[in-house]
């Protein structure tokens, strides 16, 4: 009698129409039909021979094929006589020592960054993302990086408009004079000034679109990724807002700059004060399992949620918005991706947010 043992770092997420098998060691996720879920459940409770015998002649072949796939992908291994009892399940505990993991700043002026420097140290924030409508000179980039030299930040990412001054020499100056910046995006760039190869100490993108800060919140396959840290966070917490803080262009401290609720202004209170305000953390534990439609989606632990832009059609008992993200065009009940902006059911919410941007 042979028994199939699933490796504990293989996560199977059941969606309405199909399943996602996530390999948390090799950081890859693959889609499979729902029937594989049932077969894998049977392998947990019966020996391989009995599982195969339980199917009719035509289906026996299919079960053997699936077993082959599971073995070829190294999702598990086979033992004789019984399952190996020494392989416990994986724990999905997520524990992060910093009080806040990241801060997203809608840049208004450099003094704001100087103001938050001490708070960043106290809260032990790891990443800083800056979105700027203002064009940055090379000196601006360098000054931003230097504000945080010797700090606890382990990375800075900057989105700023492309301008004529941005050429290879410009970027080289940044390459030689910055250390924490790991990614730069110049948006609104109609023609790339030079071909980018992997030559700088940061990744560099020239995006054609005029990226607005309100462009954020997209749910797309290109933003999905699989790794144990991200997945364990998503299983336990909100995959976007957990341990995040934002400062909008007026200095208002929010969960994210695109959300409506403010917890004070950076000119009046510190980040530490804002974080302990009642309600600041209310979305932190809202997982995808509690969000409408997402809870039936096979991608729910590898995607990233958005509470700033939702379909605005569900609220839970605590007054939290539990609607599906507005900018997600995937329907787990049909298994199809569509252009979200054209969905007639989303138009009301889209107009709501457009009005909100104007005020």
């Amino acid at each position: 009698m042979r028994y199939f043992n699933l490796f504990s770092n293989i996560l199977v997420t059941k969606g309405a129409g199909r399943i996602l098998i996530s390999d948390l060691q090799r950081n890859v996720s693959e889609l499979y039909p729902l029937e594989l879920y049932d077969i894998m459940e049977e392998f947990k409770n019966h020996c391989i021979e009995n599982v195969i015998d339980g199917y009719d002649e035509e289906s026996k072949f299919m079960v053997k094929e699936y077993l082959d796939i599971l073995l070829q992908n190294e999702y598990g291994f086979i033992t004789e006589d019984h399952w190996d009892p020494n392989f416990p399940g994986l724990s999905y505990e997520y524990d992060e020592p910093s009080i806040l993991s990241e801060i997203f700043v809608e840049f208004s002026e450099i003094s704001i960054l100087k103001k938050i420097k001490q708070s960043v140290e106290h809260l032990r924030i790891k990443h800083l993302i800056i979105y700027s409508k203002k064009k940055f000179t090379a000196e601006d980039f360098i000054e931003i990086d230097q504000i945080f030299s010797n700090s606890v930040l382990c990375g800075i990412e900057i989105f700023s408009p492309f301008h004529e001054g941005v050429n290879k020499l410009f970027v080289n100056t940044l390459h030689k004079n910055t250390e924490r910046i790991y990614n730069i995006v110049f948006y609104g760039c109609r023609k790339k000034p030079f071909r980018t190869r992997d030559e700088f100490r940061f990744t560099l993108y020239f995006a054609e679109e005029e990226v607005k800060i309100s462009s954020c919140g997209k749910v797309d396959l290109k933003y999905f990724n699989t790794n144990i840290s991200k997945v364990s966070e998503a299983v336990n917490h909100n995959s976007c807002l957990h341990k995040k803080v934002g400062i909008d262009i007026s200095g208002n401290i929010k969960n994210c700059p695109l959300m409506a609720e403010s917890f004070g202004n950076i000119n009046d209170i510190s980040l530490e004060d804002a974080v302990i305000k009642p309600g600041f953390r209310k979305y932190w534990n809202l997982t995808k399992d509690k969000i409408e439609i997402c809870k039936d989606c096979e991608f729910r632990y590898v995607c990233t949620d958005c509470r700033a832009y939702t379909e605005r059609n569900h609220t839970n008992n605590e007054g939290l918005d539990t609607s599906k993200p507005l900018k997600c065009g995937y329907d787990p009940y049909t298994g199809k991706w569509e252009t979200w902006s054209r969905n007639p059911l989303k138009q009301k919410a889209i107009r709501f947010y457009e009005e909100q941007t104007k005020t």
Partner: protein
Amino acid sequence: MILIFSDNNDRTTIEVIRWLAALKKDFILVNDDEFFDIKVDKKRFFMQSQKNSFFLDDIQSVWYRRGGIFFNRYQYSNNSINIYMNETQHWLEDYILKTLESKKHINKQSNSHVNKLLVLEYAQNIGLNVPEYFLAENTDEVIPGKTITKAITGNASLDNISENKDGMLYTSIIDKKEKESFFISFFQEKIEKDFEIRTFYLNGECYSMAIFSQNDDQTKTDFRKYNNEKPNRNIRYTLPKEIEDRVQKLMQMLDLNCGSLDFIKSGNLYYFLEVNPVGQFANVAYHCNYPLFKKIADYL
């Protein structure tokens, strides 16, 4: 105050430090390139290096991750005075070292490296299975194809053995008998393994990881159809209680409260291979999602 001895490149140290910061525990990080002067101030011992300083009695716990405390020793021109002062300084340093080791600690400077031969003996004495081994100057007792040889040193690499090349002395199988004799070498029975196990031990607790590699002879599994470029599978594992109890006895016998132990699982048997007091365990923590960094920070 927590004292941490590490070397500059160790990322594991930073992960623990992040937890110390979260737990609001003060610490001093000493690198292996620091040298300390021993001083006395108002009847209290005071250590000072280029970068750090502390009062000996302020220290509550010590983590010997790597490196250790190294002292500046004055040399004197008169030979007789030098001999005397060398001994004087030796006793002061010895006092500092022993006092630090008597405080709450994870690992000690004095036993951060172990004698592999003694470890195997102790392991056998407390009832752990050990692959049969022997030392020899010739291959008379070697069974070709079934015996391996490996280093008894901690490090098996020889940097710059020749121009621009490093040498690596990996564990290797002996294929044929040798006519000539050689320097005393360590030989061990080759075990057909199902998988390897790496266990991180901390103060009586074992955190294990099973490692399935491409080279395993899997008599009970048949997943040899895989792509040879896939890396090893690293999976959370629990050693049977009898083995964990013996691990604890072994570590106590070696006066170690922290270390990484390597095993081979073959059929129903667990073969103990070696213990490394200051080995890498970040991969065990990461792949198995064990909160090891937090545990260390909690303990210190």
